């Protein structure tokens, strides 16, 4: 049985391309353990709130390693993700 998972706000280091009009496009993010995840595609960007971990900003829907993920650029300039926190395996 899957454990109950929750989410937590995790700030990440992001590599971003900024065009002459100031529009930003994330290219890659660095995880806390040093791993680099390249953003294959940006599917959408829009202003949105994160109800799972709180806060709001520009939400980028991106493809990383074939999976669709959300990456937030908050109004204070930081980038964050909704990191999955797995529950105890087999917990009811």
């Amino acid at each position, binding site marked *: 049985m899957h454990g109950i998972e929750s989410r937590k706000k995790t700030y990440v280091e992001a590599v971003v391309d900024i065009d002459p009009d100031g529009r930003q496009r994330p290219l890659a993010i660095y995880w806390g353990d040093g791993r680099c995840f390249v953003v294959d595609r940006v599917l959408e960007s829009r*202003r*949105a*709130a*994160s*109800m799972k971990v709180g*806060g*709001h900003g520009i939400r980028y829907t991106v493809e990383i390693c074939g999976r669709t993920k959300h990456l937030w650029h908050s*109004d204070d300039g930081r980038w964050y993700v909704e990191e999955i926190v797995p529950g105890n395996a087999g917990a009811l």
Partner: protein
Amino acid sequence: MPDRDVLHSDINCCYAQIECQARPELRGKPVVVGGDEEARHGIVLAKNLIAKRAGVKTAMALWEARKACPGLVVVPPDYRLYMDVSRRAREIYYDYTDRVEPFGPDEAWLDVTGTRRCLGLSPAEIAREVSERMVAELGISVSVGVSWNKIFAKFGSDYKKPDAVTVITRENYREVVWQAPVRDLLYVGPATERKLHSSGIDTIGQLACASDELLRNRLGKMGFVLRGFARGQDATEVKPYDRDAADVMREIKSYGNGLTAPRDICDPQSAKAYVWMLAESVAQRMREGRARARTVSVGARAADDLCTRSRQCKLPVATDVTLEVARAAWGLLRELEPLDASHPLRGIHVRASDLEPADADLQASLFDPLPRRTEMRELDASVDDLRRRYGNKCVVWGAQLVDEGAASVDAKADNTVHPVSFFHS
């Protein structure tokens, strides 16, 4: 003249909702945003729905709130976050109209009369879209009222909460608005409600049908204004918001600043420190607003009965000089109250009014009590410049240093300008 389309948007339980959105661990718990108990600002500033249902009320002391609701979570206010969300909310409103009039950080009127032609959306559709975008983009819910005037639009946003749109039309207002208690009408507070009740008026509909004689006798001119509100006759415009001035475009009538001291004020030196600090904040804001004042007033709140007594004086010459405002305020306070331990003060307020433009011609007085006015103005300008660069606390008057509490407070930065009266033109 065709009817206007006016919306009133109200962020439900504003501060508390913003905190719960930013911190998911608070959701599902009774939460209040509370002032600093140690600085004696320990009251409920905002509560969420769960706390409200448990009987917690805004402005209640925190100890009372905890008693009413065991398990209450109290979080300190984060005004920067609330102002940011308030600004973001206004940006959503601006997508539909340029005529947005904020009424505090959590409410705003929108005049969308011309929007139907531009966007092809009805006012109710705009209200629903605004409501959906607030949830999607900011994670907060609003109640929106739609009507042809500001009063009924505000009534509508209060009518159903949370997260609702209420439309008040010429066809339904008698059924929706007129059946409601008279207290639900904007600017009917407890005192007016009591006066109206003693005359047999308990609903908005009864107020709308009240005679001239009754209104004149019981409420004076205000009675006719309120009856006009009740009839949907309010024609006040939705005033546009000047984003550069961070204020609704209206004439400022006064500059005031007040505070509750962390410890009761029991001696003249401490009182003087606070008066100097408040007077300086008022004078600095006047200079930034390019205004001078002819009248200075002071209010003192007694620690024993919490009653406020005030006095004012007219200055011989209009001024924006800190020293002049401070001396006038200090003189008034000394006349008002004996400043000793037998008459402790809880709070002080300083206000400058009777304003004129700073560049208006000045009628000099032969008996000018401050002959070195030019030097004092230059001193003020230098201090203002230093504070702009290094912060408000980089330079303080010596009088302030006498009291530890006064020295630590930044009266200008901490000053909150509350919504100006609906009647302020």
